[in-house]
């Protein structure tokens, strides 16, 4: 046997032929032909630790999937609240274990269904919710104390959370006991997803109000899901996804501490959301690096004492951007590989995309195959039988170290700029991402990177698959519903409640109390967001190219 890696490379490896391809990850990190014990310098106890122990590299819980499988949480939402309620109940009957709500664009941007800007968008790519009545229809016959609900909504999240809380109140469910997650990560909106109302500073103030409110009144709810998903989907590399997400997290923690909260009071309820892209090893390493970095940041930078404050608990979703419109059935294989990376990376909750999502929202059949993919991993593949089975792999550990190192370099740069809000104002993360997206596209077109069925193994005639159609009558129905509410409610009670929201915007009082009251009095989502527009101003996109 050759005595060390270099000797092996020089004597054995170089003599054999290499295929003429670039051996690099999807994010274009070049990999070495082999990783050996020489590449793993770190000490087991300090760099890895056992599962459930600092720095949580091997998993946040001691028993991981032997104790409890991840939550299978399929993102769903389209059409009227009744349509989505039916899909929710279908998924629950199929063995799904948590709900995840997709809202339509008007709801996400804080417009009612009857707003001019909502034309053509109502119920199209999510469910339309303009009022407390829509929210009540959405969760009809679903007991909010019995299920955990995730809601993907950001700039209008404060209103949606208030509606959810009022629906819970009307069901007789206790705010002390209900649990779930609201995405509510505005920084990544400015960086990547681009759904916003007001500029970054007031946006982060609203987020902080929600963290404070949930800490005090809805203690089991996760008031934010700090999200790398959208950052990655917009074109970031794995390192950028990780770095910008944790830098966003740092910014929220700083604001909550500034608000007067003790770090150990709120940090255990922070949650995360990462992308699961095609590169299997890179994604597993990214998730392991994420846990270790967050643990160290919370302990060393913020002085957290409760280990729960240091645990990065995360939802993950397979990469929408990796799905192809060409030969869509191939997406089932992609999603399975991505989901497996998530499970080997130790996620707490998972969404698997449906194979038809580059064409439209998923059909029932496609949604079921996506859920079944998770069930096959959980109950057939055997990977859940032992914890972090890839821990100790030379390649995985070396990649984990490298991703951590590179992501920390980015975080240092952002700190030097004055933090994430300043970095966003300078356009730094946005331009880094656009650059990566363009570089990847060029590699794809030059054939350096392969997408099966798109730039290789192309077939001349595509075989069509069925797609979900949204009935255009949805829009008209939702428009009529919100108009009826606006006609029939007690107008002076609504006016008064909206005035209270505006006052809280100005005084700095926590907004959630006044918003809950406005929702109870049938103020609509659009009306409450109009108060934000008026009080905080509207953010416009700097149209960099």
């Amino acid at each position, binding site marked *: 046997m050759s005595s060390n890696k270099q000797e092996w490379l020089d004597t054995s490896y170089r003599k054999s032929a290499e295929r003429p391809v670039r051996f690099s990850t999807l994010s274009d990190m070049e990999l070495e032909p082999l990783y050996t014990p020489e590449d793993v310098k770190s000490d087991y106890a300090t760099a890895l630790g056992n599962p459930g122990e600092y720095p949580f590299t091997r998993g946040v819980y001691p028993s991981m999937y032997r104790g409890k499988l991840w939550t299978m949480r399929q993102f769903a939402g389209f059409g009227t609240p009744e349509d989505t309620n039916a899909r929710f109940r279908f998924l629950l009957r199929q063995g799904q274990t948590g709900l995840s709500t997709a809202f339509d664009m008007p709801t996400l941007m804080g417009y009612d269904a009857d707003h001019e800007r909502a034309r*053509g968008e109502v119920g199209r*790519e999510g469910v339309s919710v303009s009022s407390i009545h829509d929210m009540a229809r959405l969760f009809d016959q679903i007991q909010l104390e019995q299920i955990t609900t995730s809601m993907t909504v950001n700039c209008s999240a404060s209103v949606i959370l208030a509606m959810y809380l009022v629906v819970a109140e009307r069901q007789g469910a206790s705010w002390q006991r209900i649990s779930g997650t609201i995405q509510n990560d505005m920084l990544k909106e400015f960086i990547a997803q681009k759904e916003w109302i007001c500029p970054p500073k007031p946006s982060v103030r609203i987020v902080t109000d929600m963290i404070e409110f949930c800490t005090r009144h809805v203690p089991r709810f996760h008031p934010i899901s700090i999200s790398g998903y959208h950052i990655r989907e*917009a074109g970031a590399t794995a390192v950028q996804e990780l770095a910008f997400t944790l830098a966003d997290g740092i910014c929220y923690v700083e604001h909550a501490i500034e608000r007067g909260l003790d770090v150990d009071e709120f940090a255990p309820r922070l949650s995360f959301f990462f992308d699961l892209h095609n590169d299997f090893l890179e994604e597993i390493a990214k998730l392991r690096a994420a846990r270790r970095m967050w643990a160290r940041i919370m302990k060393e930078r913020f002085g957290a004492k409760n280990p729960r404050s240091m645990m990065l608990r995360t939802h993950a979703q397979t990469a929408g951007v990796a799905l192809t419109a*060409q030969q869509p059935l191939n997406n089932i294989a992609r999603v399975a590989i991505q989901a497996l990376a998530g499970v080997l990376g130790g996620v707490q909750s998972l969404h698997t995309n449906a194979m038809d999502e580059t*064409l439209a929202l998923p059909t029932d059949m496609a949604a079921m195959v996506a859920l079944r993919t998770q069930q096959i991993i959980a109950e057939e593949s055997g990977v859940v039988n032992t914890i972090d089975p890839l821990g100790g792999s030379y390649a995985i550990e070396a990649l984990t170290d490298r991703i951590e190192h590179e992501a920390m370099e980015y975080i240092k740069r952002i700190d030097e700029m004055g933090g994430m809000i300043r970095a966003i104002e300078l356009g730094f993360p946005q331009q880094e991402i656009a650059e990566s*997206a*363009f570089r990847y596209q060029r590699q794809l077109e030059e054939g350096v990177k392969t*997408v099966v069925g798109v730039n290789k193994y192309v077939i001349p005639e595509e075989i069509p698959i069925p797609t979900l159609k949204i009935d255009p009558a949805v829009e008209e129905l939702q428009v009529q519903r919100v108009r009826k509410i606006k006609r029939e409610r007690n107008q002076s009670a609504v006016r008064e409640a909206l005035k209270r929201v505006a006052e809280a915007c100005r005084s700095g009082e926590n907004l959630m109390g006044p918003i809950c009251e406005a929702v109870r009095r049938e103020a609509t989502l659009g009306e409450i967001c109009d108060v934000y527009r008026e009080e905080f101003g509207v953010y416009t*996109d700097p149209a960099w*190219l």
Partner: protein
Amino acid sequence: MTEERRIRLLIAKAGLDGHDRGAKIIARALRDAGFEVIYTGLHQTPEMVVSAAIQEDVDGIGLSILSGAHMTLFPEVLRLLKENNAEDIAVFGGGIIPPDDAQKLKEMGVKEIFTPGASTQDIIAWVKENIRPRE
């Protein structure tokens, strides 16, 4: 020999959709390919798109829509162009658009629809072939 004027294109994000990865990549690739490209930024109404196209005197509009609102926003842009006697501005686009909708949009007058996976080279070639400077 007279030099042909460079083709001017407006790349637009219409509706509330914020997914601008594709629009930005395509705008940049078209610019690198020698076209004059104006990018509108996000959240444009059909009125804003058409008014920018006319003011900027473009030869074509590339609309990017990933929010499912394509059957409303494309026809509205076509209608407004016609209303403004500018229907000779070619409209093309891309996004999450099922094949049967793409077919209907083409029948209405949209010149081409590109879906995920389309290469920037294909789009550049199509623009060279199909978009001419307006009179």
